[in-house]
C-alpha cells in the first residue's frame, strides 16, 4: 500500500514538472522566433528573480495570488466554476476600504472589522450566484460573469466625488478616503523592502482550507458532491445547501484577495486598484491542482514570472513574453495532468489486471490440487 502512495506522489509531481519544462521549451522557441537568445533570457529571469528584493516582491505578490487560488479552488472542489472571484474581491475591497476610511477605531478593532467586511461582501456577492443556481438553475459561470460586470458598474457609480470617492488636488485621481495609520497591517522588517504581514493570514487561510476539506464532514460532503452530485444526494447530502455554502466560502475567501494590497500597500481603493486577479486565481488553482501546497507553489511561480519578465523588458525583450509563458504553462498543465492521469489509470488497470490474473491462476492451481 505504501508503495502505491509513493507512486501517486511521484505522478502528482510529474505533471506540473512536465508542464513547466514543456512550457519553457515552447517559450524558448517563441523567444528564438523573435530573434533573441532564449537561454540568456531565462538566465536573466532567474538571476534577477532570486535577488533579495525580488524575493520580497514574489512573497508579497504571491500572498495575493495564493488567496485568489484558494478562492477559486473551493469552487473547483465542488465542480463549481466561480469565475466571479474577480468581481467579488473588487467589490469586497472597495466596501472594506470605504468603511475603513470612514472609521478611526484602534487598529486591533478596525483591521479585523475591515477584513470581516471584505469577507462578508465577497460572500454575499458570490451567494447571489449560488442562490440563483439552486433556485433557478442558472449556471454559475453565466451569473458570475454578469455579476463581475455589475460589480464594476457599482464601484464606478459609488467611486465618484460626492459619493464615496474624493478627488486629489491635481484633479485626476479618485479614491476612497485613505485608511488611518492605525489600520495598516504589520510588516516583517526584511531588507531592503518589508514582507507584508498579510502573508500570515494567507498561510492561516491555506491551513483552514486544507483542514476543512480533508478533516471535516463538510469537506467530505463537498468533495463527494464535486465527484458526483447524484451519488452525494443519494447518500443523504443536501446538495443545494452545499452549493450555496461553498459559493459563500469561495466568496468570503475572494474577499481576502484585495486585503494584502489594501492593508499593506495602497491603503485606499482608487481607480488603479489591481483588476483581473480573480482570473489569475483560476490559472493558479489549476496549476496547484486545488491542493493548498500546490496552489502556494503556483502562486509563487506566477509572481516569479511577473518579476522576472519585468526585468526582461528592461533588458530589451518584448514585454508580452510573460503572457506567452503564463498561457503556455496553463495549457501545458491541463494537458500534462490529463496525460499523467491516463498513464496512472492505465498502470493501475494493468496492475489490477495482473493481480487478478495471478489470483485466478492461484485459484485454478488450488482447484487442480483439490481435484
Amino acid at each position: 500500500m505504501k508503495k502505491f502512495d509513493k507512486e501517486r506522489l511521484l505522478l502528482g509531481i510529474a505533471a506540473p514538472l512536465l508542464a513547466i519544462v514543456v512550457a519553457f521549451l515552447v517559450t524558448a522557441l517563441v523567444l528564438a522566433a523573435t530573434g533573441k537568445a532564449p537561454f540568456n533570457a531565462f538566465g536573466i529571469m532567474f538571476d534577477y528573480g532570486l535577488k533579495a528584493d525580488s524575493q520580497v516582491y514574489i512573497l508579497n505578490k504571491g500572498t495575493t495570488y495564493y488567496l485568489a487560488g484558494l478562492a477559486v479552488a473551493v469552487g473547483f472542489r465542488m465542480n463549481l466554476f466561480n469565475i466571479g472571484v474577480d468581481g467579488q474581491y473588487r467589490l469586497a475591497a472597495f466596501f472594506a476600504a470605504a468603511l475603513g476610511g470612514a472609521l478611526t477605531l484602534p487598529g486591533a478593532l478596525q483591521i479585523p472589522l475591515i477584513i470581516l467586511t471584505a469577507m462578508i461582501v465577497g460572500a454575499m456577492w458570490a451567494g447571489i450566484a449560488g442562490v440563483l443556481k439552486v433556485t433557478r438553475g442558472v449556471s454559475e459561470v453565466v451569473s458570475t460573469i454578469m455579476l463581475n460586470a455589475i460589480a464594476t458598474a457599482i464601484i464606478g457609480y459609488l467611486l465618484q466625488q460626492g459619493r464615496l470617492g474624493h478627488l486629489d488636488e491635481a484633479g485626476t485621481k479618485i479614491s476612497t478616503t485613505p485608511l488611518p495609520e492605525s489600520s495598516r497591517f504589520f510588516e516583517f522588517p526584511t531588507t531592503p523592502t518589508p514582507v507584508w504581514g498579510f502573508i500570515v493570514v494567507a498561510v492561516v487561510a491555506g491551513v483552514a482550507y486544507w483542514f476543512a476539506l480533508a478533516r471535516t464532514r463538510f469537506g467530505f460532503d463537498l468533495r463527494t458532491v464535486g465527484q458526483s452530485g447524484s451519488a452525494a444526494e443519494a447518500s443523504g447530502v443536501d446538495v443545494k445547501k452545499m452549493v450555496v455554502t461553498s459559493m459563500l466560502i469561495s466568496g468570503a475567501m475572494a474577499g481576502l484577495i484585495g486585503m494584502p494590497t489594501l492593508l499593506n500597500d495602497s491603503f485606499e481603493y482608487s481607480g488603479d486598484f489591481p483588476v483581473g486577479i480573480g482570473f489569475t486565481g483560476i490559472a493558479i488553482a489549476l496549476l496547484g491542482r486545488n491542493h493548498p501546497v500546490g496552489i502556494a507553489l503556483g502562486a509563487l511561480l506566477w509572481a516569479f514570472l511577473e518579476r522576472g519578465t519585468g526585468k526582461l523588458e528592461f533588458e530589451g525583450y518584448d514585454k508580452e513574453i510573460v503572457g506567452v509563458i503564463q498561457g503556455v504553462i496553463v495549457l501545458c498543465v491541463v494537458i500534462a495532468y490529463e496525460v499523467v492521469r491516463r498513464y496512472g489509470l492505465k498502470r493501475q488497470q494493468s496492475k489490477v489486471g495482473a493481480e487478478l490474473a495471478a489470483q485466478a491462476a492461484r485459484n485454478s492451481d488450488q482447484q487442480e490440487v483439490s481435484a
Partner: protein
Amino acid sequence: MRRVSKFAVACTVTAALAFTATACGDSSTEDTGSDKDQMKIGMAYDVGGRGDNSFNDSAARGLDKAKAEFDAETKELTAKSGETPADRETRLQSLAEGGFNPVVAVGFAYKDAIDKIAPKYPDVSFGLVDSVAEAKNVANIVFTEEQGSYLAGVAAALKSKDGQIGFIGGVDLPLIKKFAAGFQQGVLETNPKAKVQIQYLSTGSDLSGFGSPDKGKAAAKGMLDKGADVVFAAAGGSGAGSIEAVAGKPGAWSIGVDSDQAKDPALSKYAATILTSVVKNVDAGVYDLSKSVHDGKPLTGTQAYSLAKDGVSLTTTGDHLKDIQAKLDEAKKKIVDGTIKVKTTL
C-alpha cells in the same frame, strides 16, 4: 497525524527558506552603476504604452525628440493592466537605479509610486505627467485640458446650427470630466440656449471605453439621431468610431482629441468633417524636462502646460475654423488673462 506533521514541516521549511534567503541574498539593485557621460532618459508609460495613438504616443514623441537632440540613451517600460502600486514602484526604481535621469512617469496612476520612490533618489529628476507629487525632485507636468476643451466648446457652439451638441467621454474618470466640464462651459457661455448631451462609454475600472470604436460609434449615432450636429469625443481609440459616425451625417462636425486626428492615417478620409482636435502636448512636457536636466537646471514643482503656454491647443488642419478664428482668439485671450475661469469639474 502523520499527514499533519508532514504538511506542517513542508510549510515551515518553505517559509524558513524564503525568509533566510531574503535576509542574506543580494539586492537586485546594488550592482548597477551609472554612466555619467551619456544622458539616459527613462520612461515609464501608462497601460497601452508606445503605439496607443494617443496619450502615451504623445509622450513618446517628446522622448524621441530629446533622444535625437541630446544623443541620449533611452529605456521605455510599460505598465500592465492589473498591476499593483508595488509594480509601478519597481518600474520607477529600476530606472532610477539604472542611472536614468530624468525618469518620466506617464499617467496619474504613478502618483503614489513617485511619492515613495522619488525621495529615495534625490539626485534623480522625476517627471510625473497628469498628477502632482510633493517630493522636491519631481516636475509635475500637468495640463489644463479644460481650457482646450473650452475653446472646442466655443467652436462647437458657433458651428452648430441649432445648438444640439454631444460630448462622448471614454470612461467617467476625473480626467475625462475635466474635458467635459470645460467643453460644456465653452458651449453654454457662447450660446446659452445650446444643449450639451454628455455620455461616457464605460465606468470605473472598466477602461474598455478608451478602446472600443464600436461603442463610440453607437454613442455618436444616438446623439446624431437626437439632433446633435457637433460631437466631441474625448475617448482615446473609441473616438475613431464617433468620427466615422459623424462623417455619415451631412453637415455634422466631429472634434478629435489628444493628437491631430485629421492627420491620423486611419481617419484622414473623414478629415473634411473633423472640425478640429483638442491637443494635449505631453511631448512638450517630456522634452522640456529632458532639456532642463541636460542643461543642468532640472525643472521641479508643478509645470502647468496651460493654454497660455500652448500646452493645450486646437488644431487647424483643413482650415475649418477660419471663419470663427477671431472669436476663438478672443476667448483664448480671456482665458489667458483670467477673465474667463474654466471649471475642472461638472
